């Protein structure tokens, strides 16, 4: 056990930083709304001017009032954060981690060590400069992880202290009754040693990750966001730019639409390629910074993952709480035989997009060998059961026919509105071709396999996903059919598994419905 201890004092500023944005926005909004009323109050304005002892413009008075309110509110908030820090403690008793906070409104959370699922040690730039570390502890309880998307404990300690607490929790969680008693007699908490890293990612991996994982859409939305920000900040700038650019754009569209269909499709492909190259470079740089020094280790019943150049991530996952692995592959990764692996772990993460990444990018052929080292529980060879050819009808033929009909409708509307038809036709050809490719790939990729340990669900077209779900984490299996599918003996399989959010489901569409009974039997066992 260890005595009550308080967080590092920088926790005050980190708490304050969470509120400052809200404070600034609220004060500015309130001041802007009240500006007219305040400025009309001549007595108040003259009093401010007398206080400052000089001539100040009306705007100057308003800015000073806003700054004054901001300072006062910030000072109060800083005091509140200091108060919270003063009365927040962590301690350990018997087999429980205790988290206490508050003086008037007291809160005491007791977490049994064996219920702790994830210990996440993250360090942003500020924390690295001052030598501290954010320690987050998750149990995966519905009321916090799933309902509020929060961690049970989210505090800042010095790096040594955080490491000490992590080591202590891990040892206590793993200890059996005898070892626990022995551990209880120890006076000093155990400091965990540097783990034996079994997987390390290098520069080559990041380049490959950038080349294969970039998202052109993400870049597109970033450009849209950038333009909106510019429009918001500099009123008139966007209109001026549009005025200057529009004649050129109109000329360009006119020139483009005069070309034949083949040239237009080539042109669209070239535009896509250009955007993809910019996006690739951005993703490479981003991946190199984010995943810098990526390493994975298996320590007893835990998997430890560390990475990050500016913000350092260091999380420890309890193997018993990893309920599934998701192997992802986009189109480029499918072509190059690469994939990324993430764990579905109870209680991990208090941020929406946070995933427990195990391997950012690896050769697909080495997947089982690498998993054999860190998570042998999930090593399995996918035994693809024969799929029905009718599946192609639902994966590719029907969707392509629907897409083609929609595109034809759009082209007809464009022709009716007297818009040059070359561009919509070219776009339609590309869209239908992409849908066809996606459908054929989905047909090829969709598969289902199961054994006593793992249920594997493979799905997706352009982005392929393989779910390796621990058989005992599968909660229910379902097969859905409709009138047409029943004619062909085809169904869509839903495998619901126990995950960090409610209703985690993996879907294998348009497979033979004859497998269902066997799959259900395996899950029952």
């Amino acid at each position, binding site marked *: 056990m260890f005595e009550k201890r308080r967080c590092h004092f920088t926790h005050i500023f980190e708490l304050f930083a969470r509120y400052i944005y809200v404070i600034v926005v609220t004060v500015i909004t309130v001041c802007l709304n009240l500006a007219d009323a305040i400025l009309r109050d001549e007595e108040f304005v003259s009093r401010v001017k007398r206080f400052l002892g000089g001539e100040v413009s009306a705007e100057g008075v308003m800015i000073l009032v806003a700054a004054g309110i901001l300072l006062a509110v910030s000072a109060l908030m800083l005091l509140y954060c200091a108060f919270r820090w003063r009365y927040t403690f962590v301690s350990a008793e018997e087999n429980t981690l205790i988290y206490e906070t508050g003086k008037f409104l007291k809160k005491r959370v007791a977490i049994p060590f064996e219920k702790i699922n994830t210990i996440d040690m993250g360090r942003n730039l500020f924390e690295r400069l001052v030598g501290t570390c954010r320690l987050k502890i998750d149990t995966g309880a519905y009321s916090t992880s799933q309902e509020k998307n929060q961690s049970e404990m989210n505090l800042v300690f010095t790096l040594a202290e955080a490491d000490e607490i992590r080591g202590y929790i891990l040892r206590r969680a793993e200890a059996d009754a005898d070892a626990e008693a022995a551990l209880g007699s120890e006076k000093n908490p155990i400091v965990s040693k540097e783990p034996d890293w079994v997987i390390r990612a290098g520069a080559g991996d990041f380049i490959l990750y950038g080349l294969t994982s970039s998202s052109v859409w993400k870049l597109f939305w970033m450009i849209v966001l950038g333009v909106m920000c510019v429009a918001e900040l500099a009123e008139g700038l966007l209109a001026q730019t549009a005025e200057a650019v529009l004649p050129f754009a109109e000329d360009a569209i006119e020139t483009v639409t005069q070309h034949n269909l083949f040239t237009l499709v080539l042109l669209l492909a070239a535009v896509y390629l250009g955007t993809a190259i910019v996006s690739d470079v951005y993703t490479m740089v981003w991946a190199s910074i984010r995943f810098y020094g990526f390493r994975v280790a298996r320590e007893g019943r835990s998997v430890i993952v560390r990475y990050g150049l500016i913000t350092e991530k260091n999380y420890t996952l309890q193997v018993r709480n990893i309920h599934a692995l998701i192997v992802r592959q986009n189109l480029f990764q499918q072509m190059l035989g690469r994939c990324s692996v993430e764990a579905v772990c109870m209680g991990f993460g208090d941020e929406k997009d946070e995933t427990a990444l195990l391997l950012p990018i690896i050769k697909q052929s080495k997947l089982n060998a690498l998993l054999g080292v860190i998570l042998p529980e999930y090593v399995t060879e996918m035994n693809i059961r024969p799929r029905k050819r009718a599946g192609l009808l639902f994966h590719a033929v029907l969707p392509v026919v629907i897409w083609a009909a929609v595109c034809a409708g759009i082209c007809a509307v464009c022709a009716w509105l007297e818009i040059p038809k070359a561009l919509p036709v070219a776009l339609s050809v590309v869209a239908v071709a992409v849908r066809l490719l996606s459908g054929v790939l989905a047909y090829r990729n969709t598969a289902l396999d199961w054994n006593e340990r793992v249920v594997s669900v493979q799905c997706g077209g352009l982005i392929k996903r393989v779910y390796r779900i621990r058989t005992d984490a*599968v*909660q*229910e299996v379902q097969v*859905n059919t409709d*009138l047409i599918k029943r004619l062909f003996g085809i169904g869509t399989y839903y495998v619901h598994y126990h995950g960090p959010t409610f209703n985690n489901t993996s879907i294998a569409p348009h497979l033979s419905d004859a497998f*269902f009974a066997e799959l*259900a039997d395996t*899950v*029952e066992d």
Partner: protein
Amino acid sequence: MEFQRVDKKAKTKWRFSRIMALIFVVLPLAALAVFFGASIAEDGAGTVVGWIVAGVLVVQQVLQIFLYPPIEYIQWQYLIAPDRIEIKKGIFYKTHTVIPISRIQHVAVTQGVLQRPFRLSTVQIHTAGDVMEIQELNTAVAEEICSRLQKRVNVKAGQALDAAAADGREE
């Protein structure tokens, strides 16, 4: 073991609840469609579209009242085996669900306002991943199923604990 059907009174309950929906939801919506259709376009095309939308809404609800209940009664089936629960449902889109008993977290019986006059209840089966329902069961049957499932869950949990303890001793 054979699949069981829901209570026979379910058909009447479905009809009654759908008639209520027709009176309080569908007919007002249909009237709104006709009204908006007429006000949007003055040349009569809007009125026609409005009447078509209203007609589709009413016909669909009438089908739900008269045609679907007997089919649903045949399609809605459940099986409570020693190790699993199976539920089949749907008219056009059929769903077959299997829930292993060992994955059940808890079981609940609920009774809605419209179920009460017919003495019908719904059994809710909560797992860690989802909630499944066996609807329109006689209240006594629902309560009996609930207690039977609860006992089986306890037995399974006990077996799992014994197995874990045996594993621990072997280690």
